[in-house]
């Protein structure tokens, strides 16, 4: 932000995406404030930002918690545009939410117009093992297909909550450093992007 002092630490913008009710806000609040919210209140668009220590470096994480409901689909584009990394979240207890992750990814890719935008596939509610609908294998297969990591979390037990945010930020940071190099050189390097995809595939 331009208003901020120049000594501001690096800011990483993270956007939470996924169907309604999979636990985007729960994960966010657990990460931000160590609290687990039981009652469900559909989100429209919430902003969070805090300072954290990432691998010994002071950084700021800016989280945009978006609406999962289809009602808000139209305004997602403008949100997505500002994101630097995405947590694509589904509930392991709900098949449909897993299916729609594909749509979300496509929208992200379309808006960002960037194949390598950092995304993490997150299977939430892993504490509800007995109600599991989406197998770990299934999900990690898809992640592999996308060339992204797959992590299972529980906003309730805080399992892997920090991990997903930190992992994502590391990727963002890595990408930024890479971009800095290239921008210092000659603009965007599409071949590299493509090469990377190939490498993953």
């Amino acid at each position, binding site marked *: 932000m331009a208003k901020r002092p120049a000594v501001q630490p690096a800011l990483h913008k993270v956007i939470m995406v996924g169907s309604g009710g999979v636990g985007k806000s729960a994960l966010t609040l657990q990460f*931000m404030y160590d609290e687990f919210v039981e009652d469900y209140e559909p989100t429209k668009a919430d902003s*969070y930002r805090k300072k954290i220590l990432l691998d010994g470096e002071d950084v*700021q994480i800016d989280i945009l918690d978006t609406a999962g409901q289809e009602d808000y689909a139209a305004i997602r584009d403008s949100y997505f545009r500002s994101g630097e990394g995405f947590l694509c979240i589904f509930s392991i207890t709900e098949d449909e939410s897993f299916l729609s992750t594909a749509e979300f990814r496509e929208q992200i890719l379309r808006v960002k117009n960037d194949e390598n935008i950092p995304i993490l596939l997150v299977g939430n509610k892993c504490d509800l093992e007995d109600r599991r609908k989406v197998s770990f294998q299934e999900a990690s297969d898809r992640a592999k297909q996308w060339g992204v990591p797959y992590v299972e979390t529980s906003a309730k037990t805080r399992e892997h909550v920090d991990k997903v945010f930190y992992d994502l930020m590391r990727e963002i940071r890595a990408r930024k450093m890479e971009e800095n190099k290239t921008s210092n050189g000659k603009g965007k390097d599409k071949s590299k992007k493509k090469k990377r995809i190939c490498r993953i595939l």
Partner: protein
Amino acid sequence: MAPPPIVTGLSPNEGPPGTRIKIRGENFGSQPSDLTGLTICGMDCLLTAEWKSPNKIIAISGPVKGKGDVIVTTKYGGTGTCNVTFRGYHLATIGPMKESAVWVEETPMYSWGRHSLSPSSFQQEDPLGLSVEETENKISEEDLQNYFPGKCGDIGSPNFSPAWFLLENHHATSFNDMKAGLIYLIRKVQHQKVGQLSFLKANLNSVIDQIDTLTNLREKYDKDLSVFGSTPTIKLERAIKESEREARKLFDDVLARKDRAEKTRNALNVLQRYKFLFCLPCVIERNIKKGEYDIVINDYMRVKNLFDKTEVPIFREALNEVEKRIVDLQTKLHVDLQSMPVTVEQQKRLIRYLISLDYPQDAAWDAIKSRWEHITKRFKEIYNFHKTNDKSESAKKQNSASKYSKTQIEIISVPACINFIDEICAVTSELFPDFWKIGQAYFSGELQIKIEAGRQVEYKHMVLTAIETFSKYVRASIIPNTLDKSERAQYGSLSSLERDEVALYLPELLRSVRSTYSTLIQLDLPNEALDIIGGLLVDLRIHCMSILFQQTTEQIKQLTENWKISFSGKYAGVTDLPLKFLMLVEDVIQIVKESALSAEQRESSLLDNASAQKELERQVDNILSAFYTVLNNLSSNEDYDDCDNNSPVVSQLIGTPVGTHKTSGAQDIPTWEHRLLITMSNCIFTKNTILNDVSQKFKETGFTSIDAPIKTNGNKLEMLEKLILDKYLEQKSDPLVGTIEPSMYLGRFDWDINVLPTDIRPYAKECINNLINVHSEVNNISTGLLNSILVKIVETIAEELYRLMSCVQKFSKEGAQQARIDIEALQDVFQDYTSDNAQGYFKEALAHVPNLDGAQMALVQDILKQCKAKMKTQILCLKKR
């Protein structure tokens, strides 16, 4: 100093004014009061801020526009910082002429803070850019409606009519202004167009998508046209209609069923909701059976309150059912109320029930009346019962041979009228207090009833009648003479009693009546009522007293003499007859005192009553007279042993046949003379001692006015005493004196003899002996009588001597000597019992004897001396000790 607050999260991060924002962060203070400031995009929102926790606040955004920080200020942490931004936008900017690429919240906004939404603040901007006119001279909505039917002035409406709009809003605007407005509008629209272009650029993707979609649609439509012909919609429409019809067919039935179900459910609901009303008749019946009248009344009140004014027929019907039950209950309660026996408490409760149930009649008054009727009925019943008993009893008396009657007789061995009074007293004591209490409750307002005029008088009449009836029944049975004839016929035809029977039961009866009386007194009855019983009691007491005295009189009349004289103690010389008399009198006084005389509650002393006084006097007189009669009878009764009069007085010299002791079984009965003596002794004793005792007793008891009868009877007794004395003297002295003359002239004696006297003559000796005999006889009975009797006899003897001497024609010298010796000897011997009269007679007698010379006198003295010596014992007998 606490660390400054920092906002790290906003939910949501944008919104129109009035958005409810969850603000999260750190160091928001430890309590609500720690929060001292909150700004959202520079706008103070503290008023709407709601402190939830040290890291959560909920607030409502103000009318801000654009991005801005959310700054929290706390008491101890000061002004904080913000990491995130909130973006405010105005919905008002989105109008019919403005596009929006942002999501518009469709839910109504709520007001925030003090800035309530004034109607104008969100009013649309005037499209002509002119100020809105004042409201005056406005054309009314109706007129506009008439000018432009079916149109309206709302710019967003599909029926928008510009003319309406202008008339409504710019009715007074000048033409130039209008023109300027038009230019403004045109410019604005053009400006919009430029804006549209940039808008399109910004949303190119969406627009291209839309164009693609439209193209696709067009292609599909063309394809459809080629496949289905030029009017594909007709077929489609038909198909839709068909399917709609089919669907209806399918669902009509279901819907109808659903309707029915709905109706049934409604009905059930109604039933459920008014279950209370519909179940009430049953419930009431059950509760009536159980006697839970309170519950019934309660329910009834409730239902009345709820449904009394209802117009719904089903409710009316149910209510009528209930009413029917209640009327039945009222009737039942009313019957209960009047069926005896029932306690006052029960009655009061029943009355309360009836009042609660709005019973149309005066239940309490009915209760009082029924009680009164009950009392009257009971009186009659008892009376009739005892009357039949009485009749059967008298019948049985006449026909006592009947074998069946035996047990019957035993049962009713107590006279019917006694039983009757006993019972009627008991009934009065039992029933009347309840009657009175309920009456008191009625008039004191305890029953919460409006008292009708005249009831008081009627009630009083009832009370008096009841008591009077009671009193008259009692009077009729015991003292019918206090009632007049017609009343006697009405109340009393029980057989009247023998006096002894009455005397036996009267005190007890008196007690019964008195206990009833005291019961009534305790009730605080009016004096008028109590006086009836009081009068009854006085009469009863007088009657009781007189009966008791009569009985005693009768007993006294039955007294008999046993002729046993007690010789010792205070009452020596009398038999126990007077003592018996005294005892009887004492007994009766005691009984009278205990029963009639003693005054109890609210009774005056009987003796204050003049008629009682007179009656008492009469009765005392009767008693005393009775005893007098007894004594009199005893003294005049000489029928039974006149024949064996073995009086020793009869002269042996004459040789009257000596009445030997034939002892004809009447060994115990002394001789006539003895009896006379005993009676006389008793008489004197009675006069002197017993009468005093009696008088004393009466006075001790409180009877005062009995002096007159005592005195008259004392006089009577004195006369009787004299009579007896005369009788006795007649009995004794007549034979004694009568023997003197024959004895004197026995053996043809003549005073003109020539024989020198050697001794007193036998007639004198006999005379002395006879007197000694009498003396012993009297002394046997009572020494007290000796004087009066012996003096009399001596007097008679002296008189006889004088008579005899005066009749002598001629004394010889010797004869004269002899006469003098005899007379002086007698005079000497009788000295102690010689009255002046007798002395005179002796002197007269001596005067008839010729005087003697000295020698002759000496002889006389000599012989007298000898005689005295010889007759020493005889002389001793007649000496007073």
